[in-house]
C-alpha cells in the first residue's frame, strides 16, 4: 500500500510517495510560486520514479490549509480530480500539523508560523508523545503578540518552523521568555513527506473524506465577506 502526499499551501510545492515503511520519493521546490504549472508534473515524476501504479495508491494525503488561498485550491482541485478518477479517499492534513511533523519525535514543543499577511500568522502549537502528535494550541490565524503570550504560558522549550520566521524572528527574539530555537533550513518549510507521515496515521484511524466532499480549510473569510460583516455590524 502506498499513498501520494502533496503540499501546495505556500511557496513550496511538494509531492511524495510513501509506503508504510519508507518515503519512496519526495520532490520539493521552493522557488517561485508556479504551482499551477509544476504540481502535476511533480506528481507524475514521483509516481514514475517509484513505478507506482494507480492500483497501489490507497489514498491521497493533502495539506488542506491554512495557507495561500490559491495555492490550497490548486492542490485541492488536483487532489479532487486524481482521487475521483482513482476512486481513493482524501486524507486532509492540517498544513500547520504537517509543518510540525518535520520535527516529529522531538521532546520540544513545535510552533509553525506561516505568513498570513496583514500582520497575522497561521499558526498552532504541537508536541509529540513518541510518534503521536499532540495539539497544544488549535490552528488559528492570529497576530504575533497573543501567540507569543500563549507560547510563554506553555512554559516549555519550543522550536519555531515555517516561512514567517523571516518576518517575526526579531519579535520572537525580543519577546519569547521560554527557551526556544529555530528549525534548520532543511526542516523549516512544508514537506509532502511530513504530510504523508501524518496522513498515514490519519488514514489508519479512518479520518478520510471523499474527493467530492473535500474542501480546503482557509481559517479566514474573504475580504469582501469581512467588509460586509463590518458594514452590517456598524449599522
Amino acid at each position, binding site marked *: 500500500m502506498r499513498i501520494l502526499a502533496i503540499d501546495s499551501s505556500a511557496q513550496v510545492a511538494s509531492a511524495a510517495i510513501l509506503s508504510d515503511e519508507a518515503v519512496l520519493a519526495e520532490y520539493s521546490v521552493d522557488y517561485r510560486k508556479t504551482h*499551477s504549472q509544476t504540481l*502535476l508534473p511533480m506528481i507524475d515524476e514521483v509516481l514514475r520514479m517509484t513505478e507506482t501504479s494507480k492500483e497501489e495508491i490507497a489514498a491521497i494525503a493533502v495539506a488542506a490549509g491554512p495557507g495561500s488561498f490559491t495555492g490550497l*485550491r490548486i492542490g485541492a482541485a488536483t487532489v479532487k480530480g486524481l482521487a475521483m*478518477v482513482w476512486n481513493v479517499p482524501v486524507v486532509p492534513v492540517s498544513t500547520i500539523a504537517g509543518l510540525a511533523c518535520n520535527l516529529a519525535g522531538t521532546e520540544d514543543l513545535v510552533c509553525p508560523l506561516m505568513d498570513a499577511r496583514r500582520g497575522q500568522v497561521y499558526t498552532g502549537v504541537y508536541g509529540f508523545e513518541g510518534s503521536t502528535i499532540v495539539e497544544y494550541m488549535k490552528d488559528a490565524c492570529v497576530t504575533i503578540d497573543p501567540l507569543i503570550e500563549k507560547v510563554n504560558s506553555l512554559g516549555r522549550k519550543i522550536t519555531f518552523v515555517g516561512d514567517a520566521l523571516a518576518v517575526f524572528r526579531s519579535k520572537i527574539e525580543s519577546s519569547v521568555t521560554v527557551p526556544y530555537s529555530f528549525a534548520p533550513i532543511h526542516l523549516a518549510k512544508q514537506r509532502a513527506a511530513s504530510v504523508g507521515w501524518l496522513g498515514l496515521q490519519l488514514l489508519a484511524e479512518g479520518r478520510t473524506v471523499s474527493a467530492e466532499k473535500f474542501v480546503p480549510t482557509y481559517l479566514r473569510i474573504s475580504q469582501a465577506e469581512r467588509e460586509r460583516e463590518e458594514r452590517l455590524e456598524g449599522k
Partner: protein
Amino acid sequence: MKGTYILAIESSCDETAAAVVRNGREVLSNIISSQIALHTLYGGVVPEIASRKHIEKINPVITEALAKANMTLDEIDAIAVTYGPGLVGSLLVGVAEAKAIAYAAGKPLIGVHHIEGHVSANYISHPELEPPFLCLVVSGGHTHIVMVEDYGTYRIIGRTHDDAAGEAYDKIARAIGLGYPGGPKVDALAKQGDSEAIAFPRAHIEDCPYDFSFSGLKSAVLNYINIEKMRLRDAAKDALRTDGSAKIDPAELVRHGVPTGGDAEGTEACPETFSDGTTKADLAASFQAAVVDVLVTRTIAAAKAEGVSTVAIAGGVASNSALRNRMREVGEANGMRVLYPEPILCTDNAAMIGAAAYYEYLRGNVADLTLNAVPGLKLGER
C-alpha cells in the same frame, strides 16, 4: 453510438459547469451550478468567494454531467477546459481539476478559449452552421465583433474601448436599483418603457468603424438620474424648511421618500418617474435601445464589409431579447441569416467549451500537464 465524446469543464467566472458533448454538436449533458444568488449580496462577482464555491461544486457537477450523459470516464475521448480569459482564481480550479482528471484517466487534455466557446455555442444550436461567419460576442466581460474564418481561426474586427456591453448593463441596473445581474433585469423593465423617450448618445470612434464605447452612454444615463435626484432633494428641502431653519435632518428626507444614496447591498434609490414625464422603464428602454443600436448597426456594417451572409450572436448578452430581435430584423433586411444560441447556451456553460474543443481535438491541439490559467488570454492566441 460511435463518435467523439468530450467531457468539458468551465469555471472562468461565477458558474461551475461541466458537460458531455458528442462530435462538437450534440449535447448529452450540460450541468451548470450558478452562484448568482451568492454574489447578489455584494452587487457583483467577488473573486475569492467564486473560487471557494468552484472548489465545492466542481466534483458534483462533473459527476452529474457524466451520469446525465449515461457515460463513464472510460468512454470519454478527451477532457476540455476553459483556461482563459476570466478570473484567475476561478480558472485555476477548473484547469487544475481537468489536468488531474486527464492525467489520472490517461485522456488527452484540450485548453479552450472562453470566447471561442461562446462563439461555438452556435454550432450546437445550429448544427448546419459552418465557417465563415461573423459573430458578435457580448457579455459582462467582452464586446467583440469577430470574423470566424474557419474552425479555430478568428480575426477580431471590432472591440470595445472601455466597458463591455454587459458591464454597462450591470452598472445601469445598479444605478436604477435593480441589482445584479443587470442584463435580464434591465431587459425586462425595458419592455414596459418607451425606447425613444430619452435620446441617449451613440458613441462613434474615429477611424474604428466597428469599435464600441459605452462609457459616454453610461455617464449620460447616470447624469440623467442624478440631475433628477438633485431636483427632488432641493424641492423636498424647500418644502420641509417651513420653520425657517437652514438645517434638515437627513432622516426627515428619508421619511419623505427622497432618494439619498446607495445602500449597503450596492443598489441605489432611483426615482420611479422623472419631472419631464419619463419613467424608470423609459430610461431602461432608452438605454437598451442605445446599446442595441450600436451593436446591431456596427455588426451588420462589418458583415457587409466582410462580404458574409451569416451573422451570429454569442455571450451572455446574446440572450437579450431586444438585441436578438433587432439583429434579426436589420440582418434580414440586408439579406443576411441571423443566428443565436438558445438562452441556456448563452450563459457561461461547458457544452460550448466541448463544442469548441472538438475542433481543436480534430486538429491535434492537445495541451500538456503544464497548462496554466491565462486570465488575459487573447482571442486566437495559443
